[in-house]
């Protein structure tokens, strides 16, 4: 089983490597000291409880104060298949035909109040995530449907028992929100962590001013010896992009971890020259276009497919990348993943054909057959500039090229969700944005509504659901990849249920005296800040 899991690409590098400080090069010898002031590009987080929240405002605020069981390798966060231990000491022992995962937990970890962190705390935290008590929210509970139990038989062992063997489990354990809380507090009051912070991470919580700033200081007892480098951290809440850019320019803050569109990056480069460094990465987020199959004429696959065939992603990508947070053409799987379609595989599917003229001719033919040559409809979009409105506006011009008229209706987040959930739309610009790259779970969004509640396409497709089920249970990478292609082809090429658009792209600027932080494909991951050091205090 162990060999099988490695074969699916999850090269889990664990234990000793994770316990060492950053492998800094000779030129970049880390320095200790200093306080990092960073921007949190959001309003105050709804709460500090990672288990219940799904906003980056929570992760960017409190991830430095917490430990997790496993995580993306902070030395190589761009690698979508490499996970390392944080609190565990070694690769889990997998037994019982891939249904039992046994972790050994390190013995030198302490909570910030001085109490020891044991396997009981790890098991209690994961138990609350997987089996929340009534009245307790667990935002990602559905990721762990396959878990039948989580237990700590002793102070150094945690055992997860699964209902079936699957390759999705290990990456899902690296969820950056899965903070480990002290079991004794969790048992008494599971809501305590909504307003309080008590973890075992590289920094100790010092103070919080609602919606203003959050401060932490170095945890001198941190179990990853030699870390963190910084004496302290200050996160300043600044939701407006203009303020953030001015703050970076005037050195009121040294870094913002989410990212900016190209225009802002160019402006900063021009104004700050070598005082600013930019790191860029594909982003595990993308827009998808969902026609409402409950409404005519979008119940007709010919109409849906025509809309898909009209879009020229290959030529649109470089143009849009100049003005919006998008760049890479891809299918339903994050392009950096081994499970993603290659360019050749993509180009076989509708919407990705290399010859756009042929594609649009086919689109016009299909519309004519469906009696929808002069189709008019409303494109529902979310009132968020980057990249929703840019993508929406571009799509309208693409559809106009086959004689289709779309009118964009941009609404705030609340009404946008309400319209999707009640089926009150023609076609909608949605998004699928995930933290850990875990393709088989990430593509659940494309499952029919009767299987996955947060699919808004309004279609039912037992064939598609069956392929997914096979893929979920398949642990052989090669076979899983074949099934993923079948699943993707069904959604895009055969049924045109939904159309994945260009994948987003992160550009993270920071002052040149900030070192050690490495960019990954998500703004949720690698946020404990323990590797960051400053060459100017």
């Amino acid at each position, binding site marked *: 089983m162990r060999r099988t899991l490695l074969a699916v690409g999850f090269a889990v590098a664990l234990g000793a490597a994770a316990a060492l400080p950053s492998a800094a090069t000779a030129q970049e010898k880390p320095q200790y000291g200093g306080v990092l002031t960073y921007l949190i590009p959001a309003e105050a987080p709804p709460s500090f409880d990672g288990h219940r929240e799904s906003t980056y405002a929570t992760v960017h605020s409190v991830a430095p104060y917490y430990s997790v069981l496993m995580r993306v390798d902070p030395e190589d966060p761009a690698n979508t298949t490499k996970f390392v231990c944080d609190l565990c000491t070694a690769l889990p022992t997998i037994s019982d035909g891939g249904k039992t995962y046994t972790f050994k937990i390190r013995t030198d970890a302490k909570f910030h109040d001085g109490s020891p962190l044991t396997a009981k705390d790890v098991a209690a935290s994961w138990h609350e995530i997987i089996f929340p008590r009534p009245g307790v929210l667990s935002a990602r509970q559905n990721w762990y449907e396959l878990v039948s139990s989580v237990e700590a038989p002793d102070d150094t062992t945690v055992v997860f028992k699964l209902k079936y063997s699957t390759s999705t489990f290990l990456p899902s354990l690296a969820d950056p929100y899965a903070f480990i809380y002290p079991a004794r507090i969790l048992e008494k009051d599971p809501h305590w962590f909504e307003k309080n912070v008590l973890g075992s991470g590289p920094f100790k919580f010092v103070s919080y001013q609602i919606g203003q700033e959050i401060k932490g200081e170095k945890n001198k007892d941190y179990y990853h010896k030699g870390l963190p480098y910084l004496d302290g951290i200050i996160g300043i809440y600044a939701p407006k992009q203009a303020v953030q850019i001015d703050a970076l320019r005037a050195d*009121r803050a040294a870094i913002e971890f989410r990212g900016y569109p190209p225009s802002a990056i160019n402006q900063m480069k021009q104004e700050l020259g070598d005082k600013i460094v930019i790191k860029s990465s594909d982003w595990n987020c993308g827009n998808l276009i969902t026609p409402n199959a409950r409404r005519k004429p979008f119940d007709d696959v010919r109409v849906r497919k025509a809309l898909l065939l009209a879009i020229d992603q290959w030529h649109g990508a470089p143009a849009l990348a100049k003005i919006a947070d998008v760049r890479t053409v891809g299918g339903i799987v994050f392009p950096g993943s081994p499970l993603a379609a290659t360019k050749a595989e993509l180009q076989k599917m509708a919407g990705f054909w290399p010859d756009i003229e042929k594609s649009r001719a086919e689109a016009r033919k299909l519309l004519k057959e469906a009696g929808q040559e002069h189709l008019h409809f409303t494109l529902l979009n979310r009132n968020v500039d980057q990249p929703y409105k840019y993508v929406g506006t571009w799509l309208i011009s693409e559809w106009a090229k086959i004689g289709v008229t779309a009118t964009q209706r941009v609404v705030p987040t609340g009404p946008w969700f309400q319209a999707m959930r009640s089926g009150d739309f023609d076609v909608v610009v949605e998004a699928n944005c995930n933290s850990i790259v875990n393709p088989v779970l990430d593509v659940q969004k494309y499952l029919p509504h009767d299987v996955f509640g947060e699919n808004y396409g309004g279609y039912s497709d037992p064939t598609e659901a069956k392929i997914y089920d096979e893929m979920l249970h398949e642990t052989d990478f090669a076979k899983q990849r074949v099934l993923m292609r079948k699943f993707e082809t069904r959604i895009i090429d055969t049924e045109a249920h939904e159309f994945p658009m260009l994948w987003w792209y992160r550009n993270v600027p920071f002052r040149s005296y900030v070192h050690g932080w490495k960019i990954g494909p998500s703004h949720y991951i690698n946020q404990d800040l323990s590797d960051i050091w400053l060459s100017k205090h």
Partner: protein
Amino acid sequence: MWRYIVKRVLLTIPTLIGAAILVFTLMRLIPGDICVIRLGSGGGQFDERAVTACHIQLGLNKPILVQLFDFIWGFFHLDFGISMWSGHPVITEIAARLPVSLEIALLATVVAILIAIPLGTISALKQNTWIDVVVRTVAIGGIATPSFWIGILSILLVLNVTSAITGSPWMPPINYVPIWQAPLQNLAMVFLPALTVGYRYAAVSMRMTRSAMLEVLREDYIRTARAKGLVHRIIINRHALKNALLPVVTVIGIEFAFLIGGLVVTEQVFNLNGIGRLFVQAVQNQDYTLTQALVMLTVTVFVLTNLVVDILYAWLDPRIRFN
């Protein structure tokens, strides 16, 4: 006078109840769900069971009339409840932002009064001269230009000027510190917003001062005062200005109340964590309890400001209380 005050105070009660019912109803007419926004606005997948648990936790499963009764009962007991978004008491949420908004409003009012009353008076006294033209132009400019735009320009100006002079751009701090903790940092942060808001505020008050003064200066009692040989300064300060200030006080009062919760964009431009920003956030998040409390706070401030203005009127002009 007392009878007049009691009558005005009693009139505030139906006003507040009406406002409470209106805001409660309007909030629930906006499509959307705080739990879905909370779980899904990041673009990630979420669990429907979490939405249900969230509804129960926030009391959104209770009958609507029960929710309305709880709200009105709470308001009159000064219990605004818990923010649905953050779980903090609404009072804590407001208290965290009120000092910022109050400080900006007070400083802007000082700026406005210092500019508006002298310039408005001079403009009236020098009617149709070049001084009057300049003052009126400045006033029209202030009304026509949004504060936030002046704010953006002022930040850019500071950044560019400091960059040109020192080689490294400087801007005011973006995290608020109370004045008693770090006076310099506090003033550095609030100076520009107070100035930009105060300019617009001054422009409105300046025009009002000018027109009220022009009206009063044509009154018979001013002519009488001049005829009996009173000193010009006494005529202006004691007889003209005091009477002309009636409408100016009204404008200043209403503007002050507006500033407490109305600086939505300006607060965002200067990263001020004030009541205006909280307001927008509460509406966007569909945080019913917080929005309701903020609306009621604003309504109460308006009602009380108007009450104070009415009482000031009665004090400044005895004819009002006798009528």
